[in-house]
């Protein structure tokens, strides 16, 4: 039994040492907004924040997240106010199937914390999530809107 702090709330979760954080979040904490896509940290659908950093949660053991602050897409809004990335996503109608978007949004939110007004090149380097529907054109536009830099 380990204790995970997710979205500001403590969860006592019964997992093994090798259980990936992804499955602890989805199955033990019951927060299913974080998605499974590949299990080998290739696609980014499972991206969450651990102490503010974007992490592909399928590639991190849950036990390594003990004592850290985990944020999932469900916890991105603060006091019911959507994060500016979520607002930009809605403004640009970004999601198609939407399955990859939790991870995409979390990756972008972390990027904007690091680089408030990212250039296209910085976006290209930081955002490596797979989207099979192909929403990238809207993703890029929405990132610039969220950053307030319609570059």
């Amino acid at each position, binding site marked *: 039994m380990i204790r995970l702090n997710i979205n500001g709330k403590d969860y006592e979760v019964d*997992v*093994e040492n090798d*259980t*990936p954080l992804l*499955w602890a979040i*989805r*199955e*033990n904490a*019951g*927060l*299913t*907004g*974080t*998605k*499974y*896509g*590949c*299990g*080998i940290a*290739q*696609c980014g*659908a499972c991206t969450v924040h651990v102490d503010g950093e974007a992490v592909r949660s399928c590639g991190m053991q849950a036990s390594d997240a003990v004592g850290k602050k985990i944020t*999932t*897409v*469900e916890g*991105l*809004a603060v006091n019911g106010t*959507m994060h500016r990335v*979520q607002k930009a*996503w*809605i403004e640009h*109608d*970004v*999601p*198609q*199937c*939407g*399955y*990859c*978007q*939790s991870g995409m*949004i979390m990756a972008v939110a972390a990027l904007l914390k690091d680089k408030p007004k990212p250039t296209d090149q910085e*976006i*290209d*380097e930081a*955002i*490596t*999530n*797979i*989207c*099979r*529907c*192909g*929403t*990238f*054109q*809207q*993703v*890029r536009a929405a990132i610039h809107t969220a950053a307030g830099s319609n570059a």
Partner: protein
Amino acid sequence: MNFIPKLDRRSFVVGTAAAGGGLALGLTLPFGNALAQTASPEVNAWVVIKPDETVVIRIARSEMGQGTLTGLAQLVAEELECDWSKVTTEYPTPGQSVARKRAWGDFSTGGSRGIRESHEYVRKGGAAARMMLVQAAADQWKVPASECTVSKGVISHGASSRSTTYGKVADAAAKVTPPTDIKLKDPKDWTIAGKPLKRLDTVEKTNGQMIYGIDVKLPNMLIAAIKDCPVFGGKLKSYDEAKVAGMKGVKKVLRVNDSTVAVVADTYWHAKTALDALPIVWDDGENVKVSSETIAAWLKEGLADDQPAFVGNQNGDIKDAIAKASRTVEAVYAYPYQNHAPMEPMNATALFTGDRCEVWTGTQNGEAAFAGVLAESGLTPDKCDVHKVMLGGGFGRRGMTDYVRQAVAIAKQMPGTPIKMMWSREEDMLHGKFHPVTQCRMVGSFDDKNNLTGFRMRLSGQSILASVLPARMENGKDPVAFQGLNPRGEAAFGYSVPNLLIDHSMRNPPVPPGFWRGVNVNHNAIYVECFMDELAKSAGMDALEFRRKLMADKPKHLGVLNAVAEKIGWSTPAPQGVYRGLCHHMGFGSYVAGAVEISVLDDGKKIKIHRIVAATDPGYAVNPAQIERQVAGSFVYGLSALFFGECTVKGGRMEQENFDTYDSMRIAQMPKVEAILMPTGHTPWGGVGEPTICVAAPAVLNAYFNATGKRIRTFPLKNHGIGFA
């Protein structure tokens, strides 16, 4: 494609794609079952109006990202004359539909047919509801309905200055006799349809609240992880359950079917961990000898003229044209197997209680899934149902029902316990329904005046229908193999050549094929449109001018081609170091064309795509903003396929198991897509989810030739050491 089954009053037939073969179930409808009672009155099958004025529009087709949920709601709302801001949607279940004489028609969502093949009856559903609501108000006021007007859900009688709302008369409207004479609006007068409205499903897709199949939770549910024999056609011989029985969380190890074993546990991680530890003995069978090389050799034989082939398009005398040619040009192309790789691996949740079976899943065809549940459970239609949830991508894969049947097969062995069966990405890659493999030999003949006198195209390779929907084969021929090559219809060839022969030597390797977003136009467009550039080069002509000469009687094909040529600036020189390519095609009732600007680096090993211009003529545009998104997204799917997409067979199984060996485009590789939406009002309407994919590859390949002088004829580009810059 038109997969609509023949209907009669007492039964319907649902084509359901079972693994390894087609299955058609004739269902006798148990008429008289009541739809589950809802608290709010249903005006008709399509429209429910709640007392608070909320308008619930029922949608039979499946939303998987393509926007059909919003588009179909727009069409109903347009005729309903309701307040769009009050619109929500819900899926009827296939069980409800069967119980109501198939009130919602076809549920199938493939072939880009969601809107184009249901727009008329859903609009009539909206119009009928409007007429009933107005009639109900008129009856209350004792005035003729013709004196009443309606706008945004408010009904008014001007002469007496009275007004009421849909919510207030919905109860009474439900009792009004449905109209039989329904006149639809002229699309010119649309105010909701035809507009670039926002999607109805976006908020839940940005806050983690949208429920996909993988997110389904039921009380006391257990999770199943499965392994199907990796070798196609192989069997499950045995497994050593004792080795994993004591592992944490494991509840049961069971045989799902002839080739599949499952571990059922309290969590997916426990189920997967035990499954990975489970000793399994497979009987690989004969297909273990099959490889990409053996398949390619067999297909290559089919390119010879003396091999039997089904004719798809023919005019003039191609033999004579080639015999009398002043010169001929010949080329052979090939296209690989590809996995759909939707972001959400296959899954389904089933609850079997002995006398009932219910399934929750993301499916592109609720009725096919329903038929699969009936077949696997052995129960009658009144005892089963399928509850559709959001699809984490479909692309054709989720039109199949193999995964639904597996979930039911597991649940059947654990009555009373809901079972969520989840595939790993590896399982999903090994057991796809793959984009079929083909090769193509083409010959063009010229006379001594440099006119193209003949075009001969021999396809050799796999039929999708032979495996998935054999009932739709025509005397052994797969008509869908000729998508984009047909003499007429919704996927018509875009050129007139005096002597023409296009035929198909069908060769079906033991790899299960499926409808892969874009289906057969994807490779057919590459073959034809790259070869057209080869012919133009041989004729010493500009690629656009060469095509135009052959398109005098193809005005709609030419319309989209001209549109992209103009927008890319074909008649003016490209910037220094930038090269252009263009192409066009037709599929799914839509005319599409693409033009690109690229540059190449590292001696041709890197391609930088600067611009993509894409034109689409789907006849009518229901939501231009969503069509633009489908067009842009099509290039991600199409260019991922061109650069990376290949599943190779070795030892009778696929070699690629995850995204590390089956890559997909990232945002860094995404060029700006400039979409030209140019609906010209043709009927039948065209689709938009798939057609544009097929112009992505040939446009880039033609530009690549112009940049390097190298003609690439086998794919993906990674096999040539070529990647994105």
